């Protein structure tokens, strides 16, 4: 099957998912208890004033009409206005936050991918030795730790005891994230823990499997250097499952972002979503969840594609995993 065809098909199903998902997000948030007009005007507002505002914002229209209007505006690039921060357009706050979160996710990615692949391979090569047991146990332990717990351990060590890094990751007013890159380090490390567990364990087991296969044994028996066999022959084949695991766990990574950003007060979209939920800011919740869904779905799609490119067997079976 042709790669472009697979890409088109995946894109189609992605769009369908997004349409249904956006409708679900919209319905879910709209049925939430509490009247937006009442929230804007406060509890002391008169019934007439609330009614007038409802009418003015079109809140009295049917759900379908409001959904249509919302989607229409989004397609025009207008995400609406925040209710809590009165009159501030969501476009002016959200995108900067999305950028920060992507920097954080990218930093975590750059740390955990090489580390977990390296230690996974090391554990497999030293199968059933002390090195293997230590790496495997560390992976098992970190895999289960919620991000804020590993974050607390890191803060206690690096901020409270050693005082090397700040306890909170705030950007001073008037400065940008890039002039304060050190604040990314602890949050990024906290996310890394969980992913390290998953990926290193997967890498270890697929590497063990490959190292025990006949073609590796014959390569070693015919006298090829062991390092060459491990990196040129075995690693290539043993990487596939790890790539899937990395892709499948992007969801945890995004969930982890919300937790870690809340712990460190990092100005990303996760902490923005958290604030939106606490202040019952309906349009902002909708916008944040939509953006997270889009980024998450696209990253899942990219993993699928990468997998088909790397493993021709899947391509020929029609791109289905």
């Amino acid at each position, binding site marked *: 099957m042709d790669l472009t065809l697979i890409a088109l098909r995946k894109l189609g199903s992605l769009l369908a998912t997004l349409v249904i*998902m956006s409708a679900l997000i919209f319905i879910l948030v709209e049925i939430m208890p509490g009247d937006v007009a009442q929230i804007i005007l406060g509890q002391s507002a008169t019934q007439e004033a609330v009614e007038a505002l409802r009418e003015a914002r079109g809140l009295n229209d049917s759900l379908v009409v409001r959904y249509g209007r919302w989607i229409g505006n989004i397609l025009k690039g207008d995400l609406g206005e925040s209710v809590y921060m009165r009159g501030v357009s969501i476009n002016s706050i959200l995108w900067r936050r999305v950028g920060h979160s992507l920097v954080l996710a990218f930093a975590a990615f750059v740390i955990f991918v090489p580390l977990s692949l390296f230690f996974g391979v090391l554990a497999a090569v030293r199968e059933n030795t002390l090195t293997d047991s230590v790496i495997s*146990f560390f992976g098992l332990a970190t895999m289960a730790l919620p991000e804020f717990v590993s974050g607390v351990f890191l803060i*206690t060590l690096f901020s409270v005891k050693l005082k090397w890094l700040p306890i909170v990751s705030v950007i001073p007013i008037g400065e940008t994230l890039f002039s304060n890159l050190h604040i990314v380090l602890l949050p990024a490390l906290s996310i890394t823990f969980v992913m390290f567990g998953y990926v290193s364990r997967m890498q270890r087991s697929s590497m063990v499997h490959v190292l025990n296969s006949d073609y590796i044994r014959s390569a070693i028996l015919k006298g090829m250097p062991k390092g060459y066999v491990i990196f040129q022959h075995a690693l290539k084949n043993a990487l596939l499952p790890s790539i899937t695991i990395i892709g499948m766990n992007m969801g945890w990574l995004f969930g982890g972002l919300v937790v870690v950003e809340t*712990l460190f007060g990092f100005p990303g979209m996760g902490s923005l979503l958290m604030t939106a*939920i606490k202040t019952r800011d309906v349009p902002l919740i909708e916008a944040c969840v939509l953006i997270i869904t889009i980024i998450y779905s696209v990253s899942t799609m990219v993993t699928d594609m990468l997998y088909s490119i790397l493993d021709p067997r899947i391509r020929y079976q029609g791109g289905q995993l």
Partner: protein
Amino acid sequence: MSYFVFQLKRNPLAIIGIAILLLWIIIAIFAPVITQYTYTEMQPEKQLVAPGEANHLLGTDELGRDLFARIVYGSRSILTVALLTSLLSTILGVLFGFTAGYFGGRVDALFLRAMDILMAIPPLVLSMVVLGILGDSSIGSLTLIVSIAFIPATARVSRGVLLGEKELEYVSSARLRGENHLYIMFVEILPNTVGPIIVEATARFAYSIMMVASLGFLGVGLQPPTPDWGMMVIENKPVITEAPWAVLFPSLAIASLVIAISIFSDFISKVFTHEQ
């Protein structure tokens, strides 16, 4: 059972894991016997007492509440919710996964489509938005919503194991006998798939702890005055430089429980895969 004990004897790590898990269960059950303090009692004159001082084993928090008592009582809610969640999400997963896999065709296609949509949003984000919107989480709502967020994972596993059994002879002979679909799914097939389903349920238990703790940390879990380990961490974060213990102990409680359950579930999965 004897095989279980045989495996356990060869695996000291699993013994430690199971021991820690049992210890937490005992602590949860006998909470009032273990601590003399209650989890709500505030002693304004005893704010941020250091561990071991003034008769407070783990110290106190900013409101002068005994941390040991709050951690001991906090084990009750997290264990209850996580246990119920792993049960309910496994049951829902089996129901959906079995139905989809058994009937196949359109039912299966519809199921896969629905799972794709549910999976388009990270489980933690989904639970936190829904719980945040509903407000006032209870054990019931927390269990239900986290279980729904877990359905794609549990249902896929169940569907997978059912597909492995479906074409076997005992299933076709049951069909020829004229048994109905429900009987074939749950009386014939289910007992043969118990192994992988138990493995999935124990793994789910660890995920549930992680999820429930994170939701508590985000403030959308069980509401005060119920003591919640995750919430204790974020409550005391502002005083981390003066009183690191107030943040560290609840974190250690979560870590010890979740790592113990991971070790346990890893062991269970090894036992069941070796058996086959």
